[in-house]
């Protein structure tokens, strides 16, 4: 990781978000660089979800700027965030359960042939290529989502985000619902994203996972940014005391 000589894919500067009189996020600043995994940690209600929604275009910040590869952007919707190369893997995965893997991979962005009909061949071959690259072990691109295990579904959701993200992937608790073996598998997939030169922002409640995956850790407490640490230069005790505010 060379953090110094490249420009960040995403730069948040003095982001603030108020809901009426309540301040959910205050003065939040963070740079995420290509090929970097940043973990966002904090207790329940610390403002992690609000922050994710700001970056993914669901909420507009009350103040502050969002810069994507040097360009200041205003994002009024999730579609605009997607157009800027930002993809979100939601906690509920946002998969259509009764549809095939390949239809989910292209949901809302299905390619068509010159007759305006769905180009299933392209969807299937692109899906197979991607799940192979990411080593997501699913029976086939034709498999129906509801016939997959939790880890496989998570893998499909991450593969979809990887396929479309050119700048940044937001992962919201990617392994919260998974067993041990599946968690390891998903962690391996997340780790492999580093080679794709996109930034990854991951929310996780598991400090073990955070220390295993991330390059840097950003701590939020009650909407305040407590600090950012390089993972290699900190330990769990420091992060826990930053999260809880207790020494």
């Amino acid at each position, binding site marked *: 990781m060379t953090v110094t000589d490249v420009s960040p894919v995403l730069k948040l500067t003095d982001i603030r978000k108020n809901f009426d009189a309540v301040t959910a996020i205050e003065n939040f600043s963070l740079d995420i660089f290509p090929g970097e995994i940043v973990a966002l940690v904090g207790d329940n209600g610390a403002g992690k979800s609000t922050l994710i929604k700001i970056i993914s275009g669901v909420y507009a910040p009350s103040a502050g700027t969002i810069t994507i590869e040097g360009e200041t952007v205003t994002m009024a919707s999730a579609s605009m965030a997607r157009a800027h190369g930002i993809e979100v893997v939601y906690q509920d995965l*946002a998969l259509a359960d009764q549809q095939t893997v390949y239809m989910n991979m292209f949901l809302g962005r299905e390619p068509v042939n010159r007759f305006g009909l769905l180009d299933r061949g392209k969807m299937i071959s692109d899906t197979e290529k991607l799940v192979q690259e990411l080593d997501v072990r*699913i029976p086939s691109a034709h498999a129906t989502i509801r016939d997959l295990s939790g880890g496989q579904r998570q893998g499909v959701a991450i593969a979809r985000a990887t396929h479309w993200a050119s700048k940044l992937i937001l992962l919201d608790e990617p392994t919260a619902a998974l067993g041990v073996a599946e968690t390891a598998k998903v962690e391996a997939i997340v780790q492999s994203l580093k080679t794709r030169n996109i930034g990854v922002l991951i929310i996780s409640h598991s400090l073990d996972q955070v220390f295993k995956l991330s390059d840097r850790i950003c701590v939020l407490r009650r909407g305040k940014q407590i600090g950012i640490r390089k993972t290699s230069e900190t330990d769990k005790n420091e992060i826990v005391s930053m999260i809880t505010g207790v020494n």
Partner: protein
Amino acid sequence: MSKTNPSLVPSGRSLSLLGKANLQQYVVYLGFLAIFLFFAIVLRDSGFLTVRNLSNIVLQTAPVTIMAIGLVFVLSAGEIDLSIGSIVAVSALAGAVAMNGYGITAGIAAGLCAGLLIGLVNGVLVAYVRLPSFLVTLATMGLFAGVARSLTDLRSIPVTNSAFTGFFGSGTLLGIPSLVWWTVGAICIGHIVYRHTRFGAHVLATGDNNRAASVSGISVPRIRLTVLMMSGVLASLAGLLYAGRLQAAKYTLGETDLMTVIAAVIVGGTLLNGGKGSIIGALVGSLMMGMLNNGLILMGLSVSDQMIVRGLIILAAVAVSLREKSR
């Protein structure tokens, strides 16, 4: 891609799921075959198997098939349209009245516009006012049944325009009845739109998981509006087909079709709560309902007995197809 890690996919489980998925696709065809064979044997001396009788079944089924196509889209999007029967009556009457006054073009336009407008009302209330489609279309079903009754004071309106009755009813093209052309044409277009267009894919995604559809950039309200308008237009086309075949329009047209259409669609493999369906299955389901109707009449059952038997068979068919689908 068959890289299956045994620790993640117990292969026995996924195999049995595959088997089940195949079986459920064939339930409607097996049921169709079973009912056909039953009548073919029981009614072998009553003319069930004659070409004339079998083609009659297809002709009588045409309006139900057309409505079923619309309902496949509506159910797949996670909505329902209970107003189709009333749309049939209003459209047929509006078409007949307009045609008798202003000619065939006005008649067809009035009929189709009636369905389009009722579909628009349903669609706007469901998609943008966010009322449940069950309640909205329950209300418009009653409302437009009333409109149909008051439109001509319960009178039947004759349809005498021979171009119209030929085109929508008794005519033939290349020796094949126009009602068959309508059925085949509507099924082909419906199937292509449903299976092979982005719109079809978005309808399924909306009914399957509307949040997923929405965060994927699909306009869920627009999908809901569109399927209800399609259903309205297809029901009005069914109304014109009735008017053409019977050479008259009356408020009773379509009155009893709702249950038949829903049964045909469900038996044909479309889920009641969205995300999965089949246009071809709906066609087979609709033919099955027509065959049932026809066979029970030929068996000499009284109208009340027919209703009871039909209800029981539909119940059994729906139960079997739903049991196969929900595991």
